[in-house]
């Protein structure tokens, strides 16, 4: 009777590794058939040996060890564990979404702030905006990017703090600068609705992709994603300029609060006052956004990291879908499905 085992293999860095491992293992008398999958880092063997998989892994490892490869069954165990984690992560993620939508629906956030808008009131508006439905887009984006960056950096031992700081700096600088510009130009650069809605849809698609990626749905079901997209993300994550630019671009993301403040900046009539309005608004949104990014960093390095990534994935996925449907409704492509 032939038995089929799949082992996890460590050390396959090159396309030629596949051929080398297959050649060595085929020479072993117990191995009847062998196939290496580089993408999944697995080795499938068919054997007539009666030994248990642990022993087989050990024996076969001793043959390929000199070439720098190790076989183990460990990865399988880990995957088994993470399969269970997703069942915990889904209700946790959904619970956060429920709380978030209840908060929106409750009307607590519909504070009327009367009178003239000053930097102080725009700071308060920023605080409210950071927990409002704008959080679905800006916060969702920050959470998904932060979690993804932490996840990748934890693997590669690179500091994620720098990336976060750059993102938030980019955001503050862009709000101050563009706010000032709105003040002098007195013209609507940031408030073209269609442009903002399209940016929002792009952001929601990024969130859905990263959300699926964080939950690990793809690796489990082996649905292949276009590799280019992931390589793109991997590349942009670690460049200095990219987090800055993404932070900068958040100025244009659709958010009613941001747009209202942009109008205030336009009517303020001077660079300094426009800048102060937008900067204090951005500072108001900062605490929640900082919490999201540094919160994910601290979870990512803790022992509940897998649960955190998957829960974050569920939350981001939910917010991404919400933002996508809302964005399509805003563009008039579909009828509005909800009123939140």
């Amino acid at each position, binding site marked *: 009777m032939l038995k089929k085992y799949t082992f996890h293999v460590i050390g396959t860095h090159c396309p030629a590794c596949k051929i080398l491992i297959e050649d060595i293992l085929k020479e072993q008398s117990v191995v009847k058939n062998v196939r290496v999958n580089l993408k999944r880092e697995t080795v499938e063997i068919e054997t007539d040996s009666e030994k248990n998989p642990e022993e087989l892994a050990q024996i076969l490892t001793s043959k390929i060890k000199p070439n720098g490869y190790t076989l183990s069954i460990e990865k399988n165990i880990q995957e088994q564990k993470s399969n269970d984690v997703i069942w915990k992560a889904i209700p946790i993620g959904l619970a956060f979404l429920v709380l978030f939508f209840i908060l929106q629906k409750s009307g607590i956030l519909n504070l009327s702030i009367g009178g003239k808008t000053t930097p102080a009131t725009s700071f308060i508006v920023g605080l409210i905006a950071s927990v409002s439905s704008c959080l679905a887009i800006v916060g969702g984006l920050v959470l998904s990017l932060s979690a993804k960056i932490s996840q990748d950096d934890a693997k590669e031992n690179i500091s994620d703090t720098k990336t976060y700081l750059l993102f938030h700096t980019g955001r503050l600088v862009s709000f101050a600068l563009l706010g000032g510009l709105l003040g002098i130009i007195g013209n609507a650069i940031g*408030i073209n609705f269609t442009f903002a809605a399209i940016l929002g849809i792009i952001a929601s698609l990024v969130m859905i992709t990263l959300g699926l990626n964080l939950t690990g749905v793809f690796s489990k079901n082996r649905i292949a994603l276009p590799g280019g997209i992931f390589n793109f993300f991997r590349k942009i994550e670690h460049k200095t300029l990219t987090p800055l630019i993404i932070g900068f671009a958040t100025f244009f993301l659709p958010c009613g609060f941001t747009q209202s*403040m942009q109008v205030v900046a336009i009517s303020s009539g001077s660079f300094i006052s426009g800048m102060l309005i937008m900067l204090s608004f951005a500072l108001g949104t900062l605490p929640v956004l900082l919490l999201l990014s540094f919160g994910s960093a601290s979870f990512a390095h803790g022992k509940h990291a897998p649960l955190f990534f998957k829960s974050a994935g569920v939350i981001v996925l939910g917010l991404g879908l919400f933002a996508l449907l809302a964005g399509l409704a805003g563009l008039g492509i579909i009828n509005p499905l909800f009123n939140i």
Partner: protein
Amino acid sequence: MNKTVYIIITLALIVAIGIIFTGGAKSEQSVEIKNGVQYITILASGGYSPRTTEAKAGLPTKLIMKTNGAYDCSASLVIRSIGFQKILPQTGETEIDLGISKAGEPLRGVCGMGMYNFLINFS
């Protein structure tokens, strides 16, 4: 805990989200006809109220959007069918001329992000 427990919690939470999304407070409609002109008033603040308005067809109609310290999405109003998009003043009233209302051509307004909407039916 058992997987089944998590699945039950998950289903309960999905139902909760469904209720939150479909539920909504009903509010008084405000349609007035003065000197042969139909005035429909809608309040924009943390969403639009009333969400659905029934109005008469065949009358010159004006839509009055009322805001009171609104900074949220509902201040950025889009009505695609008449090509209207504007950020409403934080506090004040904005009058929008809808022309002569036609039966069976409902008017839908959404906020810029698409999270809030309202509908006016003409009959």
